[in-house]
């Protein structure tokens, strides 16, 4: 089996991305601003999105000829780790990670040249409309149908749990039809498309249900050719890898919150961190965070190796999801009553952690994928 060959040592460029991101996010989207956005109608700040685009983030992994920064999955994971620390709201995961990856994996050169530059520039937002049921994460099955029409396609069905579907200008809709699974570029303003925003557990990351009632699109709306199942699975693996980095950042921040609090909060005349019941909890957080960091880093470093990614992505997905949910929960416990209040930030992380652990496949689903990859 392939071994990791790419160094864990950060390059100067990666260090620069990290320090720039940390400064920008702390100054421009501190948690007070995150709270405003999470209570707003669309959870989105268009000015901030434009600023992120100017920093090169929205096109981080898009090639330079198409207006992007031309970085790879390691740089992406560095940025996402920082966003995870700050529970940064907005459609970054939906558009700059998952939808971008789907277009890159499946689109023809012509389609990429048309679709990617406006995403890189922050002028448009795209999202993948894939899931239809609550426990059906495999992209190989869709009830949504694509039937051929004269010179085009007619799409019918309902897509659920569509990340930031209420913001997207470009919907990438999966539907089965002739040539198997296809991905279709659909405008939300097309006739027959209905977008219903959902109430969500994690209000820093929104979802919508997309209804497709005989939506007619042209032949050129289908990304690439042939059955897209394998490419979609690969795109989900890459999305899982990216999300894992975000989970590491969030878990790390929760651990830091707990440790800081345990050093300053006094009960029985002592800092509570001097009690082993709290100290050991914090030390176990460190164990989980370091473990999660290892698998997330590994996955980001093996994306070029298809066989190894098939192991590394679900490995990262299951370990990082479980770790973040656990650490975010323990963070509340370490804080006691204050940790359960709306005023305290701990719940922002818990909601992000729980929601993220299900978004692209539950930990058990990820372990099932892992088992298939290693023959168990």
């Amino acid at each position, binding site marked *: 089996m392939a071994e990791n060959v790419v160094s864990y040592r950060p390059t100067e460029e990666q260090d620069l991305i990290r320090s720039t991101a940390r400064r920008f996010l702390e100054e421009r989207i501190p948690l007070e601003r995150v709270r405003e956005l999470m209570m707003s109608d669309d959870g989105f700040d268009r000015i901030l999105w434009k600023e992120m685009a100017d920093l090169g983030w929205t096109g981080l992994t898009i090639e330079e000829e198409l207006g992007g920064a031309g970085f790879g999955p390691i740089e992406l994971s560095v940025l996402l780790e920082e966003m995870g620390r700050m529970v940064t709201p907005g459609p970054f995961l939906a558009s700059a990670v998952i939808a971008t990856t789907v277009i890159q994996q499946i689109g023809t050169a012509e389609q990429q040249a048309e679709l990617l530059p406006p995403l890189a520039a922050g002028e448009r937002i795209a999202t993948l409309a894939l899931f239809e049921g609550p426990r059906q994460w495999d992209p190989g099955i869709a009830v949504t149908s694509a039937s051929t029409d004269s010179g085009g396609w007619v799409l019918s069905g309902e897509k659920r749990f569509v990340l930031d579907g209420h913001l997207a200008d470009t919907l990438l809709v999966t539907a089965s039809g002739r040539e198997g699974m296809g991905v279709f570029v659909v405008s939300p303003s097309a006739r027959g498309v209905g977008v219903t925003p959902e109430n969500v557990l994690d209000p820093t990351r929104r979802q919508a249900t997309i209804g497709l009632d005989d939506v007619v699109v042209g032949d050129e709306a289908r990304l690439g050719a042939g059955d897209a199942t394998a490419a979609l699975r690969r795109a989900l693996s890459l999305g899982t890898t990216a999300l894992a980095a975000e989970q590491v950042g969030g878990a790390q921040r929760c651990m830091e919150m707990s440790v800081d609090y345990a050093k300053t909060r006094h009960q029985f005349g*002592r*800092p509570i961190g001097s009690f082993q019941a709290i100290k050991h909890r*914090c030390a176990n957080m*460190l*164990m989980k965070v370091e473990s999660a960091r290892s698998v997330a*880093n590994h996955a980001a470093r093996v994306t070029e190796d298809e066989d190894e990614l098939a192991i590394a992505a679900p490995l990262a997905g299951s370990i990082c999801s479980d770790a973040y949910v656990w650490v975010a929960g323990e963070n509340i416990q370490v804080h006691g009553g204050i940790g359960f209040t709306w005023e305290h930030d701990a719940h922002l992380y818990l909601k992000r952690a729980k929601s993220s652990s299900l978004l692209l496949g539950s930990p058990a689903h990820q372990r099932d994928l892992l088992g298939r990859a*290693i023959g168990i």
Partner: protein
Amino acid sequence: MIDGNGARVDELVDRLLDDHPPGESENIELWGAQYDRGLAWVWHPDGFGGLGLERRYQGRIDRRLEAAGASTENRRINLLGIAMGAGVLDAHATDEQKRRWLRPMFTTEEIWCQLFSEPGAGSDVAGLATRAVRDGDEWVVNGQKVWTTLAHLAKWGMVVTRTNPDVPKHEGLTYFIVDMESTGVEVRPLYQITGEAEFNEVFFNDVRVPDENRIDAVGAGWRVTLTTLMNERLAIGGSTVPRASGYIGQAVEVWEREGIDDPVLRDRLLQLWAEAEAARLTNIRANEMATAGIPGPEGSTGKLAWANLNKEITEFTVDALGLDGTLYPERYRLARPERFGLHEPQKAYLRTRANSIEGGTSEIMLNILGERVLGLPGEPRVDKERPWSEVLRG
């Protein structure tokens, strides 16, 4: 990438192999030559088994020796000497002491053991009670040590003793190298839950130790003890195992051999596989960061992670065996272990119960992570300022 020092050690290794071709020369002779040419502990000074280079070149030397078929078994045979004793001597011993002990240690002509734990001093090793009383140029040692690996084969023992009971516990300790063949040293096998005796109990009855065998100053024993434990951790953290090897490999093998088709057990196995792989990747990351000179918290988690994993994995494997898990691969008998390496699942299940106790309990490891890595405050200590003789023990 080969730098000047890399090229130099490569050349020295080549010449060592030319002069002592593996398979044609006795191991002891090869190891002696390796020591004499500074390739035993490359970071030691010239003349003491090293060349004064950075520690990281040792891996390169060992890999090249192994690739050429030369034995590095001495590192296993004399584990406690080569991994820990040498570090203690390098940091604290006089040149005369190093000259006397290092070479026969490396050649395995003299086996070493370490005597720290006592029946009344486990996690609180600084509370130990073995007494050493000065008598002219000698010290008279009395007390009992426990969980001593290799004591029955050892020539030399690293012993921490209490030389002053009237000061706080850390200040009254002195460290000696004791000849295990001295009159008054009694070694008894200590039978563990598998029935085997990997370890020993060691009794000291009026054992006379020359003052020239004292390491560092009288009262400096705790400092030397910490060096020993630090070297133990370096030795444990140094190796990286292949993916899905060890007990997780055994679990997968049982799963496949038995043709188990149970979704609950499958998810549990995959969870353990994932956690074992995460711990392995953490180990790789830690080694790389340590080699690069930027060690982080990842370097401190391995012992605790593997202790938990080994226990959980072997428990899973016995569960997966079903009723076969109630059978034992052999009849229990009280004896020294005959072989090393992986045990059968049932025996492994028993043996790994000690993984969260030996070499620092998991509770102590969590304290270390909490206090030294995360900077959390320590427990209030009732024994801190008081003379050892006034502290409740046992």
